[in-house]
């Protein structure tokens, strides 16, 4: 598969979205709404539940499935309220020493008048800042598109995993081709040059694990769940100061 094939696959219709992962991996999920400031951003789905009997906080960027659902979730493009909701839920998790699991799937944070008026930059910045110093284990799994700052806002975690046909990049290949080469037809070249596929990212050390997709079978979710439980059990034993220090080193190396 070429890099561009993977880009297309990461956005493919019918690909499981965050809600599907939550359904398959989290037991007794209770959704918690709102940022307690302005609104409930439906592009970000968050709540609490169990994974293998362990209480966790789960936050996912949700693109939606059919047309109406996609519109409801704003195609997985979060407003500032989405990031503020995520921070609020993370702080609640920290208080009760629950691990935080994030599913990341977004073409990017929303670009619009309301988003700018209500401080999209500040919201993402604070989400990164709070997540990177959170005193509880964190894991982010990129399950489709990891689009720029909008994805990083929920990816300043202990480890970042990615499913094998997902991408993670500072800019979309379309944006790169049109800005850099003034030629939007060179998307395939840009996909290649940006080194944005799961395999490239692993080689660069930007992700710790590439998760085989196995056609998103039942087995896939079972294995992923098992890996997550194992990971959190290991992280839970580490004192919070050491967790933060390790996270610092993880991002400092770039």
């Amino acid at each position, binding site marked *: 598969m070429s890099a561009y094939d993977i880009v297309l696959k990461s956005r493919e219709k019918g690909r499981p979205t965050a809600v599907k992962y939550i359904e398959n991996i989290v037991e007794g999920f209770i959704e918690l709404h709102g940022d307690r400031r302005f609104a409930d951003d439906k592009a970000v789905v968050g709540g609490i539940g169990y994974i293998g009997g362990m209480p966790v906080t789960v936050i996912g960027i949700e693109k939606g499935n059919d047309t109406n659902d996609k519109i409801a979730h704003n195609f997985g493009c979060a407003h500032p309220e989405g990031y503020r909701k995520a921070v609020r839920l993370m702080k609640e998790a920290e208080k009760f020493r629950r691990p935080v699991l994030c599913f990341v799937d977004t073409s990017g944070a929303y670009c619009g008048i309301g988003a700018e008026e209500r401080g999209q930059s500040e919201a993402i910045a604070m989400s990164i800042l709070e997540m990177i110093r959170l005193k509880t284990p964190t894991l982010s799994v990129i399950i489709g598109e990891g689009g720029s700052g909008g994805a990083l806002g929920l990816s300043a975690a202990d480890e970042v995993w990615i499913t094998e046909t997902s991408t993670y990049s500072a800019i979309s290949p379309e944006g790169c081709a049109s800005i850099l080469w003034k030629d939007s037809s060179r998307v395939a070249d840009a996909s290649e*040059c*940006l080194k944005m596929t799961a395999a490239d990212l692993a080689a660069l050390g930007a992700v710790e694990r590439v998760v085989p997709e196995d056609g998103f079978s039942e087995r896939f979710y079972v294995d992923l769940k098992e890996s997550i439980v194992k990971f959190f059990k290991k992280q839970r034993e580490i004192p919070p100061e050491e967790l933060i220090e390790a996270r610092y080193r993880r991002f400092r190396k770039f």
Partner: protein
Amino acid sequence: MKFDFKKFFFKKPKNELEGTENVPAPAEEEPKQEAVIPEKLAEKCEKCGQIILKDELDANFGICPKCGHCRKIDARRRIDLCLDDFTELFADEESGNTLDFPGYTEKLADLREKTGEKDGVVCGTGHIGGVLTAVFSMDYRFMMGSMGHTVGEKIAKTFEYATEKSLPVVGFVLSGGARMQEGIISLMQMAKTSAAVAKHGEAGLLYISVLTDPTTGGVSASFAFESDIIMAEKGALIGFAGPRVIEQTIRQKLPEGFQRAEFIEEKGFADLIVERKEMKEKLAAILRLHCGEVVA
């Protein structure tokens, strides 16, 4: 009233978090005058189009004496304007073309030669109103201050240095965002710098960010908005997405003043707007208030 069929049948999907109903009318663009300018002696103001003598411009802090437009100034000029003295740090820091991005090696070499800088940020320490401060200053001439490895590394090192020496940090921010040619490495600089800001803050130290024209993209969504005090230079463009990207996304013209410093302050995201001429004085006052000796 005429019935608008287009509006009726081709409604945009409603997005409830976007109050797109009450958007003010877009600003009309003023026609710009064209003129031939004798190079080096004078420059044309990019806003009012008038010819300004270079000496006059320099004496006036790079502000157009005709219309008050703040021209971009390079990193070292900014340091000159705001600091009493300056000792550069991490001057040798530079990095190459990690992703082997086509054309990037040449671009870097070319810019290094043209600007005399290794990359888009100058860091160091110096006094502002008597307070010893760690400083970083970003440079528009280097790919509009975009953040790649070198920029991120030097800024992170500045915060680490300041944490170790218990110094406040003043950051003159200017950036179009991510350095595309460094792909994911560029994105990771947002997390790296944020982590360094967090450590500095937890040590109880002051960080003032000065947002200048432009502050957008990945830089705006990291250390620009993570400070204790956010100062915005008058008229600066500050936002997450650039205005062109927003216009393409929402398919409408943006209102006048949108994403300008005054707008950012009005919406509650900047503590104060400062004119370039008063910047040093304002910084000094804030620094002294936080770091000066307490008499009473």
